[in-house]
C-alpha cells in the first residue's frame, strides 16, 4: 500500500488500483455523513479531484492518486458512509480503477514517508 500527500491510499493489484482515504484523514474529518462517488467508466486524472467527502465538520475534496478508468465504486458507502470511519483502508475503500500509467505508483509515498507528513 502506498499513500498520496493528499491523504489517499492505493493498493495496486495487477493493473487495478484500489483507492480510499487514509486512517489519518478519516480521523481528521470526523463522522463522515456522505461520500460523493464518481461514475463507473469515468476517467480519473492524477492529482485532480474525483469526489467529495462530507463529514459533520466539513466537506473535503478527494484527489486521484493515480490516472485511470473507474471500473468499480463502493456502492455500500451510499447507504453507510460511516464505513470510511470504521475501516478506511478495508471496507471503506472508495473506487477501483484500471490504471493507465503504473509508473505513477512509484511516485507515491511509502508508509514511513506518509507518516512523517502527518506529524
Amino acid at each position, binding site marked *: 500500500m502506498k499513500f498520496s500527500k493528499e491523504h489517499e491510499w492505493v493498493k495496486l493489484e495487477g493493473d487495478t488500483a484500489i483507492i480510499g482515504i487514509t486512517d489519518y484523514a478519516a480521523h481528521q474529518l*470526523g*463522522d463522515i*455523513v*456522505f461520500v460523493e462517488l464518481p461514475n463507473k467508466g469515468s476517467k480519473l486524472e492524477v492529482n485532480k479531484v474525483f469526489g467529495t467527502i*462530507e463529514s*459533520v*465538520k*466539513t466537506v473535503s475534496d478527494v484527489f486521484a492518486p493515480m490516472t485511470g478508468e473507474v471500473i468499480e465504486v463502493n456502492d455500500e458507502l451510499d447507504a453507510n*458512509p460511516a464505513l470510511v470511519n470504521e475501516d478506511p483502508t478495508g471496507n471503506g475503500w472508495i473506487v477501483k480503477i484500471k490504471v493507465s500509467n503504473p509508473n505513477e505508483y512509484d511516485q507515491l509515498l511509502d508508509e514511513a514517508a506518509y507518516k512523517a507528513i502527518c506529524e
Partner: protein
Amino acid sequence: MTEPLLFELDTKGRRGYALPKLDVPTVDPADHIPTKFLRKQLDMPSLSELETVRHFTRLSRMNHSVDIGFYPLGSCTMKYNPKVNENIARLPGFANIHPYQNADSVQGALKLLKTTEQYLAELTGMDAITLQPAAGAQGEMTGLLIIKAYHNKKGNNKKKILIPDSGHGTNPASCTMVGYEVVNIKSDDRGCIDIADLKANIAPDVAGLMITNPNTLGLFDENIGELATLVHSVDGLLYYDGANFNAIMGWTRPGDMGFDVVHLNLHKTFSTPHGGGGPGSGPVGVKAHLKEFLPTPRIVEKNNTYSFEDQNNDTIGAVLGSFGNFSVIVKALAYIMYSGKEGLKDASAYAVLNANYMMKKLKDTYYVPYDRFCKHEFVISGKTLAKQGVKTLDVAKRLLDFGYHSPTIYFPLIVEEAMMFEPTETESKDTLDSFIEVMEKIAKEAVENPDLLKNAPISTPVRRLDEATAARKPDINFYQKP
C-alpha cells in the same frame, strides 16, 4: 413529525370562505383560454380557515426564534429586532409604494435611501454606499466584482484573493464565483493573520485580501494597519466582511483601518429579521477610488430633489432590481436613528461585554483555545469531552432540549470540535447566567450519562435528523411519495 401536512388534512368540499352569489354571467374558461394551458385537476388541499390557522400556528410553535429564546449562533448576530421597526416599515407611505413609480412621486423613499447610505458611509468610514445587494453573500460578490472592475480598468493582471484560514465559508465561495483563485493564509498562535505567511504570499498577481475584523474567533487583528500596507503595496485591495461589524460600531471604522471595500449585513448588525424572517440586506461601501464601479442606478440629490442616475460606463451594473430590499432598509434606518451614535456605540460595548462574561464563565468547564480578551463572539472547544465519546454535535443537540438554539459548531475550521457563541447585546445577565448553568450541566452529563447527549435532542418535535441525506436527497414533494 407530529403535525400532518395540509394535504393530509384535506377534506374535499371544505372551504375557507364562501363567495357571494355570482352577479355576472358565467363563462367557460375553455372558450377563452387555449386548452393546452388549462389544467384538468388542481391539487390544492381543501380546509376551513380555522384548520389552516391551527396548522400554521402549531408549526410556528415548533420553531425556534429569538422571540422565543436565546439564540447564540456565532457570526450571525441574532439580536432582538425591536417591534417598532416593523410598525415603521408598515406605514402606508413605505409599504404601499411601488419600485416602478416615477421618482417625483416617491421623493420621501429616495431621501430615506440616500440618508441610509450617508449614515452607513459615516459608520464604516467609506465614501459611497450601494444598498442594492439582497444579503451578505450577494454583498460579497458585488464587492469582489467592484475589485475586479478596478483591476480590469487599470489593466492589472490579477488572479488571486488571499483569505485567512479563519475566514467565513462564503468568502472563498464568492471569490470563486467571480473567477479568482483563493489562497489560504495561516493564522498565528494568537488567532490572527500570520504576517510571515501573508508576506510569503504577497505577489503582483494578488487582487486583494478578504477578512473580517474582528475575525471568526472573535479576535481583533491589531496588525490591520500593516496588513493594509502590505496588500496595497502590490495594488491589491482590502475587503471587509461586515458579518462581525456588531463588535465595533462607533468605536472604529473599516475605512480608517485601510479597507477599500466593505459589506454590511443589515439583518445582523442593524436589527432587521434574519434567516427565514428576512429578506436580508447586504449594502456595500467603497472608498472614493472605487465609486465609479458601484451598481447603478444611483440615487442623486440636487436642490433637495432626488432622482435616479443610470449613466456610468464603469459600473458593474445592477445586482438586484428595485434598489434593494426597501422595507429592510427602512427598519435598519429606524434602528440607527432611534439608537443614535451613542446608542450604537453602547450596543457594541454590551455585545463585547456579554461575550467576555460568557467566555470567562465557560472557561471553568470547557477548553478555550484562544484565551484572551474577545470582541462580540468567542470560540470554545468540545475536545475535552472526547474521553466519553461525546462530540460538539452532541452538546449542540442537547442544548435544544433546554430550549436554546445551538451555537455555530465545527467553525472556524482551525479549532478542533469548535463551538462559536455570540450572545449579542440584547441578552440580559440573567439569560446568560441560565445558559451558562445549562452548559455546565451538559458538561456534567457528558461524564455521568454520555448516552443522554448522544441521543439528544429528546424533547423536540423531531429527534436527531439525517441532515446529510436531507440535503443531498430531499424528499419535499407530497405527490412523489413512493
